[in-house]
């Protein structure tokens, strides 16, 4: 087996040292290169804290994080951040540039990239998220979803090997959400991009390679979506699974195992 791109070992974290309860306790997992990991869990289960720990915004109490073999700490965090990017939830506070293209270029300016190369990268990133026509717009003319796409473009322009999405698709309408997810899936295939997406959207989580279920700061389960949805029936399941359960409770003789949308359609056709 290859060395995993992200390795988290016995991570423990709490905001206030005086308090007993920990936000994260003894979290361990690893992610392979080119994998899509969805982190799910109810509010307050420590998802966002985990995301911020991964990019070095907080430092852990105990345990370690290795990204591409480098251990994340105060001195290495700038090096590590060249490989890992994060998209946050609130699009307004992520928009630093004064126009769309300036914002996409912000990260590139920080690594002191020459102007000509920057132009190419910005162009390409805007194309990926479908914002080329709006490159000269200022943020006040954009909707929440459009700003979110710009934020994603800003990360893509940096060409990181890992992208963390902290509920980044919340503000998007279903159509652009689907198209962006498609783009990311393609990038993941083509460039071996590793994606960690924190989400409440189970349909989105169901398309991931693996799911990490977080409960009260502990890893409850890390497995394929199929397995997770089968084991943890208290989770809000994706649409196809909901339909299967409904049918099953109405007395139809559906298979008793989890089914993806495709499988369900095929089964219904038969």
């Amino acid at each position, binding site marked *: 087996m290859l060395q995993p791109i992200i390795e988290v070992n016995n991570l423990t974290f709490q905001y206030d040292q005086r308090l007993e309860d920990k936000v994260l306790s003894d979290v361990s997992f690893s992610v392979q290169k080119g994998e899509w990991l969805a982190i799910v869990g109810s509010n307050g289960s420590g998802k966002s804290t985990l995301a*911020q720990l991964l*990019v*070095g*915004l907080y430092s852990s109490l105990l345990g370690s994080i290795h990204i591409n073999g480098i251990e994340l700490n105060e001195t290495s965090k*700038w090096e590590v*951040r*060249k490989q890992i*990017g*994060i998209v*946050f939830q*609130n699009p*307004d*506070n*992520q*928009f*630093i*540039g*004064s*126009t769309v*293209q*300036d914002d996409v*270029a*912000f*990260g*590139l*300016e*920080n*690594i*002191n*990239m*020459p*102007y000509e190369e*920057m*132009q190419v990268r*910005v162009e390409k990133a805007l194309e990926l998220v479908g914002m080329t026509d709006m490159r000269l717009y*200022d*943020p*006040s003319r954009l909707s929440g979803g459009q700003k979110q796409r710009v934020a994603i473009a*800003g*990360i893509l322009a*940096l060409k990181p090997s890992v992208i963390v999405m902290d509920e980044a698709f919340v503000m998007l309408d279903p159509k652009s959400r689907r198209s962006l997810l498609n783009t990311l899936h393609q990038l993941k295939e083509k460039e071996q991009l590793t994606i960690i997406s924190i989400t409440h959207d189970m349909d989105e989580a169901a398309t991931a390679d693996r799911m990490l279920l977080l409960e009260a700061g502990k890893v409850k389960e890390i497995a394929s979506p199929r397995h997770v949805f089968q084991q943890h029936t208290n989770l809000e399941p994706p649409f196809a699974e909901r339909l299967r359960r409904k049918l099953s409770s109405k007395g139809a003789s559906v298979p008793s195992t989890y089914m993806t949308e495709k499988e369900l359609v095929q089964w219904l056709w038969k």
Partner: protein
Amino acid sequence: MNKLILGRYFPGESWVHQLDPRAKIVAAVYFIFVLFLANNWQTYVLLWAFTFIAMRYSQVPIRIYLRGVRPLLYLILFTVFLQILFTAGGKIYFEWGPIVISEYGLINGFYIFCRFVMIIFVSTVVTLTTKPIDLTDGINALLKPLRKMKVPVDEIALMLSISLRFIPNLLDETQKVMDAQRARGTEFGEGSLLKQMKTLVPIFLPLFVSSLNRAEEMANVMEVRGYQSGATRSSFRQLYWKHRDSVCLCVMITLTLGLLWLRNEGLFH
């Protein structure tokens, strides 16, 4: 808020619009200094001619310039009247105690009026024809020499551009907070001054707190995207010095020479 014309941008494609912001800022600041060279009516005519040409070339309707003068009108009139009433010299038309209306007073008053209006006009030409972000770029470029004196020029520029970018957001938020408080029964702009000031507290506090949250989140985003204060950064926005910018500065020099000549010689002295 709508009355304030300074700092507004009037989109267009005119000759002045296409000037480099650096050239425009330098020219406007220079003009304000050169203004004090004027000392007789010929020089004022020349300056007025220049101002009008600049205004015409900007292709912005005159009424917008006039609107820019309006909020400052009282200040201008106040200064002008003080000049008229307390300057002595020349032929005296009216005298009552310390108050003297004299020939010099009237002339001085008129000159001061001209100066004020021209300063406003010329600075509005710049702000109306330049996008705020280009202005910041211009200021940034012009401040660059100060780097040697350890002035954090890039940080100042970044602060300026982030503030500019957040003005609409903060205005929106203020409006939202006001509406939310109004929905809960707060009445704005009523009662005594003290009462009115008190009703502002439920607007300011939420705004203040949300600004702090915003700042923190933004600092995180900037950090994660690799922003390190003091590090060398390249720049995506580039300024290009063109022919017309050199022309603009040449015009300023010609103007100065003209002023100096008229000032000493006087055409019809």
